[in-house]
């Protein structure tokens, strides 16, 4: 019952005019960037980071949460209308959603996506309010070695489980870890990888890394393929659903929520896996399997719900453990550090007002999104007619301004350009960006925990594997990393058996 009273107190904190305005601003900006392919919530939050350092933390977090949820809503619009997913979580939505739009049912597809997102978001945020404090209670007893093990699971998760290739994921993670260690070592006071450049002694600011990789990298990437045939306008109309659509949508919404939340909550979650699983489930359970591939409403309802539920799930490890499982959460974590909070199990204890106000703002933002998205879908679709040069010129302007504002030194602009080139190269060679940003943010934390455990054990390596939680974590890591090898051996064993 503590949770409920805390949540109600959170609502009390949020319901001020300024906070509500922040939430509205957040969901509006979030939907807009979600609609535009290539500009996601992660890039937007990164661009806004420097501005928010001067803001009240609660207000800034409410703004970020609105952008985070709004991006999920907006992404589905582009998927459905253009077959160009605004972000990776909406890839599955495009499969059936675009078919529906082509069959003249864009309005119904948008409606089931928006209402499903609202239902899933509300249920999952409630789950967040009840699960997160439990996780905190468990996590608060964790020692340094266990914490290190959990961070390592997150590393392996984001680089090996998500994305198409393990090698690419790990390469990206290593680039991130390398950027993360630049600066003065906090134990010995030695300079690491600063190459004698005094400006690097403090390390590279996370803002510069995030803006460089997300904003400049993406802008360069789009500039490299600026010319593309324009698509025709698909008439949207006002989203609505008939009785039949409701009947076919509500079960997929609930099933999608059930799939999305846990996958978002575990490190290595992300929204790709649950949306895909939800799509497969709906396809199997549907009474109209023949409609799949030709615009089945279940194929939009389920994945869209899963996608929003996983967004809420992502906040469980972020708030309870200080572990980000997607790019937007990673940058929100950097923001928390920027305000001088220590993300981790102690956050809820030290800043309960902040955490509960954030959760309450999620409910409010979610409701605003439904109101904003149902009647205004045609307006959002108009955003797609903005010429790309205007858009990316604006992004580059904000990126440079933000990077310069951090320390007011020209050196940061050079760094920004360098990191932007790295981001461009990563996109060119298919390296995922998420492991890099997680590496930059969690790398120093992992190092701190590892060193602390070694200090406690007097330099004995066995100090790194103390406690059952650590054993379980290392077992998971070993399984994930070795599974392709093991499965290959098993398969070979099977074939030889059959052959014999």
């Amino acid at each position, binding site marked *: 019952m503590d949770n409920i009273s805390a949540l109600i107190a959170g609502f009390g904190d949020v319901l001020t005019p300024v906070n509500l305005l922040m939430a509205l601003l957040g969901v509006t900006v979030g939907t807009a960037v979600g609609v*535009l*392919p290539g500009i996601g919530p992660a890039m937007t939050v990164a661009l806004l980071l420097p501005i928010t350092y001067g803001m009240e933390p609660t207000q800034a977090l409410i703004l970020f949460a609105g952008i985070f949820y709004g991006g999920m809503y907006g992404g589905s619009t582009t998927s459905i*209308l*253009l077959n*160009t997913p605004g972000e990776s979580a909406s890839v599955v939505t495009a499969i059936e959603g675009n078919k529906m739009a082509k069959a003249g049912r864009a309005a119904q597809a948008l409606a089931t996506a928006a209402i499903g997102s609202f239902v899933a978001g509300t249920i999952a945020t409630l789950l967040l309010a009840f699960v997160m404090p439990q996780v905190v209670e468990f996590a608060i007893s964790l020692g340094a070695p266990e914490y290190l093990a959990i961070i390592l699971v997150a590393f392996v998760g984001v680089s090996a489980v998500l994305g198409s290739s393990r090698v690419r994921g790990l390469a990206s993670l290593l680039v991130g870890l390398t950027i993360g260690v630049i600066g003065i070592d906090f134990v010995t006071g030695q300079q690491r990888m600063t190459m004698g450049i005094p400006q690097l002694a403090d390390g590279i600011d996370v803002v510069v890394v995030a803006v460089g990789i997300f904003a400049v990298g993406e802008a360069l990437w789009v500039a490299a393929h*600026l*010319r*593309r*045939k*324009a*698509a*025709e*306008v698909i008439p949207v109309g006002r989203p609505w659903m008939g009785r039949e659509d409701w009947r076919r949508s509500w079960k997929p919404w609930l099933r999608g929520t059930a799939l999305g939340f846990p996958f978002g909550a575990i490190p290595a979650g992300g929204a790709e896996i649950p949306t895909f699983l939800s799509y497969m489930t709906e396809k199997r359970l549907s009474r109209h399997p023949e409609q799949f591939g030709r615009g089945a409403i279940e194929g939009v309802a389920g994945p869209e719900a899963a996608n929003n539920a996983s967004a809420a799930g992502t906040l469980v490890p972020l708030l309870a453990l200080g572990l980000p499982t997607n790019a937007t959460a990673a940058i929100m974590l950097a923001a928390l550090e920027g305000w001088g909070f220590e993300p981790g199990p102690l956050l809820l204890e030290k800043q309960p007002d902040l955490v509960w106000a954030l959760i309450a703002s999620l409910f409010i933002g979610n409701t605003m999104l439904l109101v904003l998205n149902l009647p205004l879908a045609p307006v959002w*679709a108009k955003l*797609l*007619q*903005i*010429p*790309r*040069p205007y858009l990316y010129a604006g992004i580059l302007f904000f990126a440079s301004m933000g990077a310069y504002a951090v320390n007011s030194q020209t050196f940061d602009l050079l760094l920004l350009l360098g990191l932007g080139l790295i981001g461009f190269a990563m996109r060119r060679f298919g390296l995922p960006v998420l492991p890099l940003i997680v590496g930059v943010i969690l790398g120093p934390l992992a190092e701190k925990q590892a060193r602390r455990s070694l200090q406690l054990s007097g330099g004995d390596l066995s100090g790194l594997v103390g406690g059952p939680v650590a054993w379980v974590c290392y077992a998971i890591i070993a399984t994930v990393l070795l599974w392709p090898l093991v499965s290959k051996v098993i398969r070979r064993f099977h074939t030889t058996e059959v052959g014999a």
Partner: protein
Amino acid sequence: MTVLVGYVPNALGEAALTAAVEEARRRGERLLVVNMSRDDVLVDARRAGEEQLARVGRDLAELGAKFEVRQVEDGNDAADALLGLAEQEGVSVIVIGLRHRSPVGKLLLGSVAQRVLLDAPCPVLAVKAA
């Protein structure tokens, strides 16, 4: 010689097309229908879909006109595209749709119609939507 018409999928484009058919018949010339869409936007409201162009083609064939339908998908300036074609093809008259614009609209956006009117190497027939 050829009659060149800039076609957009709305009332304005239809009006221009109707006038162009009449003009081509009067002059006894070939009709060249051009639809332009910009290549630097994701979605262009002025882009005519395949079905729309096919319908235009059917209608023109039914009227017994000698015609060609072309889609321009490169560049981001419809006026340049029209004027370039007029030069290339030795066009005798360009037909375009013309609409009333508010002072603010004029301030914010350049007008394709105005540039065609001022820079065309041949006479221009400007038509208002019915």
